[in-house]
């Protein structure tokens, strides 16, 4: 199927009448996913949004329930967002990150109803990356610029139109409902050509990385690798696969609500015990945890690397600590100092 670029605002306006529609929206010097009220608000020109699409399903701050406690009892009211949503213009890396996060929020023992309800009620319309950034390394972590994982529809920009690839049944019925025209063979060929020419220039060699991490927890590499890191946590807040959170009460006396907020393994109090003991005493342990979690523990538990190569942590680190260089360093690490 195909949709002309000039028809996009109209297409979105139709969706807005039925769904809550999120799309990248210009915010100063960057774009963010926001609910849009008009199809003309969507901005598909930027390579990627400042914050990942994850925040739609797992917001930075989210009310879990409200309560009213008295001597007689406690009234608890669950707050579930069951609104039907469409995410328009999500990049393949962000879409794939949600497939990874599904493992966490729907684990072997528990289901998180807040995240999973939103996931079940959302249609994901992705847009492939014709010109990936120099910091994009999705192909090194099992993704690609036109990966369809986690998507219902994938748009391929062929100039003045998008070729629409149907990925799921949900996507198919949405595209049919919208009455999209069939793509001609020439359009399809153009899309195939674009896909071929879009290249990720940056490759991170992850061969043997997991095996190294299986054995190098106590190696001296970690004494040095974290030195540049300020522990600001920016990378964790911008990461599409980071999922750590805190739970707090926002209340006056016994009336209030329980809220969960993003948290970060980069912060010392994240693991601080009531006794004062802290299993991750210094930045070294905390930085190691971040790398281990993404490239070893997640792989052990779910057979997937918890990184989609979006490059946000590289672009936004205040001290230019580049995860690609870190991984390369870890991969080459030795059991003893090579001084």
């Amino acid at each position, binding site marked *: 199927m195909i949709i002309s670029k000039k028809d996009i605002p109209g297409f979105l306006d139709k969706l807005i009448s039925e769904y809550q529609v999120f799309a990248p929206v210009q915010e100063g010097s960057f774009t963010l996913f926001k609910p849009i009220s008009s199809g003309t608000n969507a901005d598909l020109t930027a390579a990627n949004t400042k914050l990942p699409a994850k925040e739609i399903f797992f917001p930075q701050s989210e009310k*879990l329930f409200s*309560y009213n*406690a008295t001597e007689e009892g*406690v009234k608890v009211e669950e707050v579930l967002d069951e609104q039907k949503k469409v995410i328009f213009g999500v990049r393949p890396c962000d879409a794939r990150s949600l497939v990874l996060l599904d493992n966490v929020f729907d684990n072997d023992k*528990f289901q998180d109803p807040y995240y999973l309800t939103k996931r079940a009620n959302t249609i994901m319309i992705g847009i492939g990356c014709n010109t990936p950034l120099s910091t994009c390394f999705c192909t090194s972590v099992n993704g690609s610029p036109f990966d369809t994982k986690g998507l219902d529809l994938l748009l391929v920009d062929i100039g003045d139109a998008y070729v629409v690839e149907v990925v799921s049944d949900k996507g198919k019925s949405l595209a049919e409902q919208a009455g999209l025209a069939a793509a001609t063979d020439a359009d399809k060929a153009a899309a195939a050509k674009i896909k071929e020419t879009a290249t990720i220039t940056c490759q991170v060699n992850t061969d043997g990385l997991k095996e190294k991490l299986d054995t190098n927890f106590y190696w001296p590499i970690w004494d040095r690798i974290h030195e540049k890191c300020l522990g600001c946590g920016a990378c964790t807040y911008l990461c599409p696969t980071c999922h750590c*959170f805190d739970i707090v*009460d926002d209340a006056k006396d016994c009336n209030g609500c329980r809220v*969960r907020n993003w*948290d970060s393994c980069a912060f010392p109090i994240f693991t601080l015990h009531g006794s004062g003991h802290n*299993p991750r005493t210094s930045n070294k342990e905390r930085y190691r945890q971040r790398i281990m979690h993404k490239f070893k523990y997640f792989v052990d538990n779910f057979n997937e690397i918890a990184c989609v190569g979006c490059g946000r942590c590289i672009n936004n680190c205040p001290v230019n600590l580049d995860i690609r260089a870190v991984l390369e360093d870890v991969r080459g690490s030795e059991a003893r100092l090579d001084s």
Partner: protein
Amino acid sequence: MKNPYLPLPMKLVKNFTETEDKLIHTFTLQFLSEEDEKSFPYMPGQFAELCVFGKGEAPFGMASSPTEPGFLKFSIAKVGVVSTALHMMEEGNMVGVRGPLGNYYPVDELKGKNVVIIGGGFAFTTLRSLATYMLQPEHRGDYGDITVIYGARNPGLLLYKEELAAWEQNPNINLVTTIDSAVDGWNGRVGFIPSVTEEVAPSSENTYAIVCGPPVMIKFTMPVLEKLGFPDERIIMSLENRMKCGIGMCGRCNVGGKYVCKDGPVFTKAQLNELPGEY
């Protein structure tokens, strides 16, 4: 989909000052209905997130045993916002409980075995749950000798004093209590847990050791158990790490790839040997 974040309201029926320094209270919470109680089927070693509405929630191991129906017991030290608020609560107040969470002591695997329970200080809570469970007449026959070695800095800091006194008289259990340094009127042993363990522990043959206590006690007790011939598969420990969600999602209590809240808190030493020492 069951929402694991929603607390079950429970009524505080007893706020008891457990220790001489007044820093540990034991809270008895009553279920509001039989249906509520049925929704909370737990085992010794499991924990729950206890919340004071308006203050927040924190994880605590159940000190009561499932063989004691109608209520839950928690012994809690006053250290943070939630525990301080709990200490100040009055009988009749409402609190929230969500759980049961985590795994539990392997009560089935322990069948037919001797069990030595080794506890230090305030970590005795879930061990009390386990001992109470095994001592229940219905269960007692399932287990061999039960030995409890329990130490505190001084007699005033021992938990469950009345119960300990009853266990002293109970032929079904061999209780050894110890304090760090001698005081007048103390009839038990004097000395640290590791050396007392070395003296009084039963043979490691067909025996499991269940150990819970402060890190320094664990550190010095492990070599003793090894010397006594306990294999790592038969040394069982309960870990504590800072937790929030209790359901393996919020990311902070992991030791290697395992979450203490979801995959623990009970691990064998053999299992812990495979993990980094981040606890």
